[in-house]
């Protein structure tokens, strides 16, 4: 039986964190709508990326709204995340969510205990990144920029991205292909190196 586990058994087993793991770290993968966050997480995650929803209101706050407005639905935000076992005793969670200001509650939850944030940027839509940077900085998160290289997107020089986004000189800017595991890993490495510099 051990030598030939059924696929069901394997699937059942693989959803859990290894029992030796004692620590969990969290990095946020942020960016505007459709920038490639889910793709990025999927390229690195050892589990099928999961999606869950966060309600945006306190339980009692919207009762009247729901009664009063026909067809109104509660605001929910999708939260995509994946997991990566990095050593015998450490797993890394990657959480991705849109960067709209109206999702503050979710951001608070996400930012708590996060090592830092990787900000995915579409070079053709740089202006959509501004509000996301405001959020990251508002929560005091350290971050690095990963310019997601879309096939059809114009090629931007690092200096252009820096200037357009008004970055600090030491904020890392890397290019990545969110579909590629190695490329995505390299982008995270740039972030973690930066975090280490800021910690020393």
């Amino acid at each position, binding site marked *: 039986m051990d030598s030939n586990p059924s696929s069901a058994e394997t699937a059942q087993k693989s959803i859990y964190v290894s029992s030796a793991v004692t620590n969990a770290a969290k990095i946020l993968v942020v960016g505007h709508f459709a920038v490639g966050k889910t793709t990025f997480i999927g390229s690195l995650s050892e589990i099928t990326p999961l999606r869950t*929803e966060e309600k945006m209101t306190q339980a009692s706050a919207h009762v009247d709204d729901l009664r009063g407005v026909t067809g109104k639905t509660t605001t929910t935000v999708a939260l995509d995340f994946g997991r*990566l076992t990095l050593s015998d005793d450490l797993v890394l969670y990657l959480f991705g969510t849109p960067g709209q200001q109206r999702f503050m509650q979710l951001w608070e939850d996400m930012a708590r205990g996060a090592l830092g944030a990787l900000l995915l940027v579409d070079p053709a839509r740089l202006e959509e990144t501004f509000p996301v940077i405001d959020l990251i900085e508002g929560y005091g998160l350290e971050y690095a920029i990963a310019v997601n290289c879309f096939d059809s997107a114009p090629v931007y020089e690092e200096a252009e991205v820096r200037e357009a986004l008004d970055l600090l000189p030491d904020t890392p800017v890397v290019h990545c292909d969110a579909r590629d595991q190695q490329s995505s890993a390299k982008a995270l490495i740039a972030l973690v190196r930066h975090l280490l510099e800021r910690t020393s």
Partner: protein
Amino acid sequence: MTGPGEESPVTSDFVRSYVITGGRSLPSSDELALHTLVTLAPDRTLPLGAGPEVKAIWELCSGGYLSVAEVAGHLGLPVGVARLLLTDLSEQGHLLRRAEPPRAQNVDRATLEKVLNGLQSLIG
């Protein structure tokens, strides 16, 4: 009797969550972070009167450690609702947690170095 169409505004996800939690407000993330690892403690008995969501959590968490976010994701529950039910189980002594992740952003170098080494091993 109402038809399915008439019923839908009342049985929105919001109302369902409200019913599951018994109308209680959701706990803050101070209680359980999204990436806190939890599992069922050994030799525990399912509380009498546990609802279907608690039963589902019980079953899922009996298999090993998962993060709070994963419990929510696997069961299709909003994170806040999963957190509340897990907090209940924790307070009743049914849950084990792995060392709480640090809450502030002042992360220790050892963790960062471990993360860095792990990522570097991916790119060979």
